[in-house]
C-alpha cells in the first residue's frame, strides 16, 4: 500500500538531513578562512601585548604558568631574551625551536603543521605557535553546531507533516465515507465546493461517472417499465384468447379460438424477441468490433430469409439494383436492421405488392434502400415512427412498435444517416440508409 504520508516523510526528512549536512560543510569551509584570520590576529595581539607588558624580562614568573596548552586554541608561547636564551615556554617539557623569521610562517614540527608568529624588540623575542589542527577542530565544532537545530527540526517537522497531511486528507476521508453510504439509487453528485484543489478533480471525475451511471440506470429503468407495459397488451390478449378456447362450445369454435390464441402467442414471442434485440443494442451494452463486410451478400441472405413470408403474401420482394459494396460494420446487427425493414415492408404492403432492395455507392456513401408500394407513412409521422413503442393509428398489424426504433439504433451505431421518403407509385415507403465510407473506415482504424 502506498501511503502519501509515509512517502512524504520518506522524501522530506532525508532531504532535510542532506541540506543540513551540505550547509554545515559549506559553513566549515567558510569558517576555516575566518578562523585563520581571527587566530592570526589573536596570535599577533598576544605577541605584541607580551612585548609591551614585559619590559623586564628577568621576571618570568609573572607569566602564567604553562598549563593552558590544554585549552582549545592550543597556543604555544615562548620568550627569549636579547641573548637568545629561552626564558619562557608554555611547553615546558619540550620547547619548540626558535624560528628565525619575523611575522607569520607555517612549519612542520613533531609531525604537525604549525602556524607560527614571531616578533621582537630590543630586549625580547616572542614566538606564538598554534597547531593547525587546533584551528580545524574549532572550525569543525562550529560547523557541527549548525547541525543541532536541524537535528531538532527533523522530528518536529516529521510530526508537523504527519498531522498536516492527516488534516489535508480529511476531505478525502469524508468523500470516502460519503461514497460508502451510496447505493445504486443514490447517484446524486458529491459536494465539490469545499474540497481542496488536489482532490477536486477526483470528485469531479467521480461526479461525471455518477451522472453517466444515473443516466444509464434511468434509461434501463425506463426501458424495463416500457417493456413491462408493452408486454401487458399481448399477454392480455393471450389470456383472453386462452379462456375463450376453454369456454368454446363446439369443436369449430374451439379451433377458431385456438388459431387466434396461436396468433397471440406468436405476437408475444415477436415482442419479446424485439425487446431482447433492443436491450442488446442499448448504448451501454458491450459492442462487438466492426468487421469489413459485403453489404450485397448480406442483403441477398436477408432477402432469402424473408422470401417465404413475402411469397405467402404474393409480394414480389427482391434485389432491384446492387453493386459490390463493402462497409465496416457488425454483421449480426445489420442483418437485424435489414430484416426489420423488409419485415415491416411485407406487413404494410398489400398482397400482390412489390418490395425492392437496392444498393448504390458514390464516393462518400454506401446507400442501402428498401422501398415498397404499400400504405406508406404520412410525412408528419415520419419522425415519430422511430420512437420506441410508437404504433401508428389505425395500424392493426400485430407489430411490437420496436422495429424502426431498432433500425434507428443500429443505424446510429454505424454512423449511418436514415431517411424516410415516399416509395414506389407515390404510395409506399422508401427507407434509405447512408453509410459514410470515410467514417466507417475511420471507426475501423480506431
Amino acid at each position, binding site marked *: 500500500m502506498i501511503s502519501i504520508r509515509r512517502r512524504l516523510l520518506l522524501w522530506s526528512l532525508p532531504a532535510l538531513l542532506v541540506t543540513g549536512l551540505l550547509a554545515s560543510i559549506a559553513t566549515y569551509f567558510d569558517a576555516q578562512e575566518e578562523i585563520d584570520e581571527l587566530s592570526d590576529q589573536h596570535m599577533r595581539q598576544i605577541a605584541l601585548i607580551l612585548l609591551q607588558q614585559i619590559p623586564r624580562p628577568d621576571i618570568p614568573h609573572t607569566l602564567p604558568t604553562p598549563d593552558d596548552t590544554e585549552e582549545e586554541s592550543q597556543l604555544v608561547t615562548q620568550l627569549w631574551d636579547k641573548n637568545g636564551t629561552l626564558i619562557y615556554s608554555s611547553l615546558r617539557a619540550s620547547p619548540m625551536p626558535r624560528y628565525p623569521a619575523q611575522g607569520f610562517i607555517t612549519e612542520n614540527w613533531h609531525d604537525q603543521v604549525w602556524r607560527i608568529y614571531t616578533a621582537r624588540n630590543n630586549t625580547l623575542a616572542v614566538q606564538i605557535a598554534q597547531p593547525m589542527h587546533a584551528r580545524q577542530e574549532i572550525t569543525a565544532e562550529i560547523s557541527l553546531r549548525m547541525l543541532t537545530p536541524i537535528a531538532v527540526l527533523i522530528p518536529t517537522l516529521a510530526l508537523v507533516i504527519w498531522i498536516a497531511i492527516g488534516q489535508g486528507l480529511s476531505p478525502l476521508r469524508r468523500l470516502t465515507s460519503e461514497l460508502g453510504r451510496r447505493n445504486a439509487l443514490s447517484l446524486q453528485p458529491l459536494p465539490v465546493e469545499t474540497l481542496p484543489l488536489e482532490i477536486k478533480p477526483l470528485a469531479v471525475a467521480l461526479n461525471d461517472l455518477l451522472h453517466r451511471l444515473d443516466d444509464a440506470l434511468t434509461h434501463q429503468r425506463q426501458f424495463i417499465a416500457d417493456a413491462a*407495459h408493452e408486454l*401487458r*397488451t*399481448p*399477454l*392480455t*390478449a*393471450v*389470456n*383472453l*384468447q386462452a*379462456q*375463450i378456447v376453454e*369456454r368454446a362450445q363446439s369443436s369449430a369454435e374451439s379451433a377458431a*379460438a385456438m388459431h*387466434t390464441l396461436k*396468433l*397471440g402467442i406468436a*405476437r408475444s414471442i415477436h415482442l419479446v424477441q424485439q425487446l431482447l434485440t433492443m436491450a442488446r443494442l442499448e448504448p451501454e451494452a458491450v459492442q462487438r468490433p466492426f468487421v469489413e463486410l459485403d453489404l450485397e451478400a448480406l442483403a441477398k441472405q436477408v432477402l432469402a430469409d424473408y422470401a417465404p413470408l413475402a411469397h405467402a403474401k404474393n409480394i414480389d420482394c427482391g434485389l432491384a439494383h446492387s453493386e459490390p459494396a463493402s462497409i465496416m460494420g457488425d454483421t449480426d446487427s445489420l442483418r437485424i436492421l435489414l430484416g426489420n425493414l423488409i419485415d415491416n415492408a411485407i406487413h404494410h404492403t398489400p398482397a400482390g405488392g412489390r418490395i425492392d432492395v437496392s444498393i448504390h455507392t458514390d464516393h462518400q456513401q454506401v446507400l442501402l434502400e428498401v422501398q415498397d408500394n404499400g400504405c406508406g407513412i404520412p410525412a408528419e409521422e415520419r419522425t415519430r415512427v422511430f420512437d420506441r413503442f410508437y404504433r401508428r*393509428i*389505425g395500424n*392493426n398489424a*400485430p407489430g411490437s412498435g420496436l422495429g424502426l426504433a431498432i433500425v434507428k439504433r443500429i443505424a446510429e451505431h454505424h454512423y449511418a444517416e436514415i431517411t424516410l421518403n415516399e416509395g414506389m407509385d407515390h404510395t409506399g415507403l422508401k427507407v434509405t440508409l447512408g453509410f459514410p465510407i470515410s467514417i466507417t473506415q475511420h471507426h475501423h482504424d480506431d
Partner: protein
Amino acid sequence: MRLLVIEDDQMIGESLCHGLRQEGFTVDWVHDGKAAGLALANDVYALALLDLGLPHKSGLDLLKELRQRDNTLPVLIITARDSVADRVSGLNSGADDYLVKPFDLHELIARVRALLRRNAGRAQSLLVCGTLSLDPITHEVIHQGNNITLSAREFALLHTLMEKPGAVLSRAQLEEKLYGWNEEVESNAVEVHIHHLRKKLGTDVIGNVRGVGYMINKTV
C-alpha cells in the same frame, strides 16, 4: 344488455367481444377515442369498457367529458397502467371500476355484472318479479317453480324487460339494447321473440301497451 368496448388493440378487442357475447351480452366495439365519443352519444349502452391509451383522444378525457354531460353510464377502465396514481386518477375522473391488464375474462365479466347490478340499485344479481326469476349468471329462468329454457335472444329480451318491471320499453329501445351494429335486425324480430316468450311463460307475463311498447307485468 348492450355494452360498448373501447379498445385499440385488435386482438384484445376481438377476444373481449367474443367472451362477452358468449355471456349473452350485446357488444359494440370502437377502436379510438373519436369513434368512442360518437358511440357514447347514442346513450343506448348499459356499460362501457374503456382502455386509456387510445388514439385521437385519451380514455380519461373521454370519461371526463362523459361525466361533465351528467351521464351516469357505468364505466369500467381496462388498462395496462397499474400504478396507484393511475388508478386514483382513473377513479377520480369518474370510472366505476378499474381493471389492470392482463386480466381474467371471468373477473371482467363478474365486475361487469356487479356494476350493472349496482347501477340498477339491486343488492343481488337474481332478478325476481313475482313468481318469475332470472339469474343473469347461470342464465336460469324459473317461472312458477318450473325451469324455462330460452334461446340467447329470448333470454336477453326477458333480462332487459326484468331490469325495470312495470317500465314500458318501445320496440326501438329493445332493438337498440339487443342488437349490435353489425347485426341484421328483422323488422318484426322483437315481436317474434315476445311471441315465443309468451308461449313459454304464459301470456300474462309480458304486457303490451299498444302503440307504445312492452313491459313485465308487476303483478305476475
